[in-house]
């Protein structure tokens, strides 16, 4: 029996590049979403529906004195983008729970791919999904009368908000997936994101709110991310709000992404 030493086997001495591994995992994620129509279609159709349904049902809300726009679609379309992007991140978390439960994730963990790429890969997929959802919702929104308050540059904060919330959602969902390793994590990630996105200026501006919701919305960083998202479609969004929104994205993204990374490290305990 000949014994082959490691050095003579070319294949197993190569270091796996972080970027290559991330892209490989992202491609897999995007391809799989397309192949499961029960997850893909709702992911795009729900935000479109939400934009239209909220704008149609609460059409009259713009008549409240001082409302920052005269078209309800301008108010609700960015909300739909944020909801859709957040749930794109959750979708990544759900896919991760599935991978862990089926044992496929063991296979991925046994490869020499850098651990960071195990997070960045799915994250890239979530970003791509956010771009798709945002574009689809904007297209439909425009058809239903959404109008930018300024130039086309106003679309940029909307896309940035979408990418930001997708990042936050991904970090949170992945962390929970690694922590719970089963469908309990799935339930929690959906519920928490839903709550935190709605306890904001989701439905109405703070100026018309009463009591408890006003207090909660004021301290909820997602209120400012929503303001960032809406800034291109409303009149006179103060720079302060835009900066707070960007700041909230940066801070929450770092927190949730490090949560995910830390939980990944504990998967072997």
């Amino acid at each position, binding site marked *: *029996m*000949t*014994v*082959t*030493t*490691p050095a003579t*086997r*070319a*294949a*197993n*001495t*190569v*270091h*796996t*590049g972080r970027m*290559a*591994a991330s*892209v*490989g*995992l992202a491609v*897999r994620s995007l*391809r*799989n979403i397309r*192949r*499961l129509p029960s997850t893909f279609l709702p992911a795009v159709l729900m935000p479109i529906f939400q934009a239209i349904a909220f704008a149609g049902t609460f059409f009259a809300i713009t008549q409240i004195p001082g409302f920052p726009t005269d078209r309800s679609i301008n108010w609700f379309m960015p909300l739909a983008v944020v909801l859709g992007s957040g749930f794109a991140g959750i979708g990544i978390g759900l896919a991760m729970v599935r*991978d862990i439960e*089926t*044992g*496929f994730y*063991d*296979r*991925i*963990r*046994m*490869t*020499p*791919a850098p651990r960071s790429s195990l997070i960045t890969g799915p994250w890239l997929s979530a970003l791509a999904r956010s771009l798709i959802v945002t574009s689809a919702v904007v297209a439909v929104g425009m058809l239903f009368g959404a109008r930018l308050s300024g130039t086309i540059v106003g679309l940029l904060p909307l896309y940035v908000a979408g990418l930001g919330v997708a990042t936050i959602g991904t970090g949170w969902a992945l962390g929970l997936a690694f922590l719970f390793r089963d469908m309990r994590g799935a339930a929690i990630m959906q519920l928490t994101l839903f709550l935190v996105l709605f306890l904001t200026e989701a439905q109405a501006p703070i100026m018309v709110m009463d009591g408890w919701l006003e207090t909660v919305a004021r301290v909820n960083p997602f209120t400012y991310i929503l303001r960032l998202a809406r800034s291109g479609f409303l009149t006179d969004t103060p720079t302060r709000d835009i900066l707070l929104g960007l700041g909230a994205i940066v801070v929450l993204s770092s927190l949730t992404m490090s949560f995910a990374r830390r939980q990944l490290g504990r998967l*072997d*305990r």
Partner: protein
Amino acid sequence: MPDSPIVAEGLVRHFGSADDVVKAVDGVDLEVRPGEIFGFLGPNGAGKSTTVRMLATLLRPTGGVARVAGFDVVAEADGVRRNIGVALQDAAIDPLMSGRELLKLQAVLYGLPPSRHAERAAELLERVGLSAAADRRVGTYSGGMRRRLDLALSLIHEPVVLFLDEPTTGLDPMSRISLWEEIRRLNADGTTVLLTTQYLEEADQLADRVAIIDHGVIVREGRAADLKAEVGSPTLLVVVDDDKLDVAAGVLARFGELRPSAEGTLGVGLADGPSLVSAVVRDLDEAGVMVKNLELHEPSLDDVFAEATGYRLEGAT
């Protein structure tokens, strides 16, 4: 030995909280020699899979150390991963992807140069006989096909060490034999193989050396032939009526030490060899015990196992 492909010292793995601990692996020492097939034999729950998962960097040991392919499994996990291939008990596959896509993903994650991905995938698909099904979704594959793909996935980077966790459990005899041949072929190319199994025949047929694990510890280790010789005397298995079991046991005990056997049978080690068989039957007859069935077994791994653990691995003789 500094260049042993697998070395473990005092490997321990506990699950659960302090007051409710499950000691899945409770102090395992291992040393696998370069180029050998090492068999890890034991029943379900013995700690085989847990040991493999620790060596494969999937599970952090609670205690002890292990080095695979020269790298520490905890501190140098990436080094281990680059050099090992693993096929676990349940084929770890993604039903939405095709066989070819899965192999290519593996190639990416193992850092193979992109120009080699397609070629290497095709090579392995051919080798495990999945070329025809390569572009179908893995969800449509049969159980046997999934196992074969799992094996292919573990070989993408030509590992020096291969871990196979119960590779033939649930397979039909044809597939089992064909997998054995593949394992022998891989081993002939120089791959060190550690395989876990609950099948005595598999350990007997494939392994150069065997370790018997029970309740998280290794109870016997060595070459199969040596272990059998240690048991020494052949086992005489006798089937009698249930109400005569005690009487028969008394008779048999005069001929050698009683050995564990299946329900309703009695086993005795005939220290002075097979010539005693007629004496046993005569004495049983004189004691009024009718022998319903009688078998004489040269020592097998089954006997080694029974002697080491106190019970038989596979229910029947």
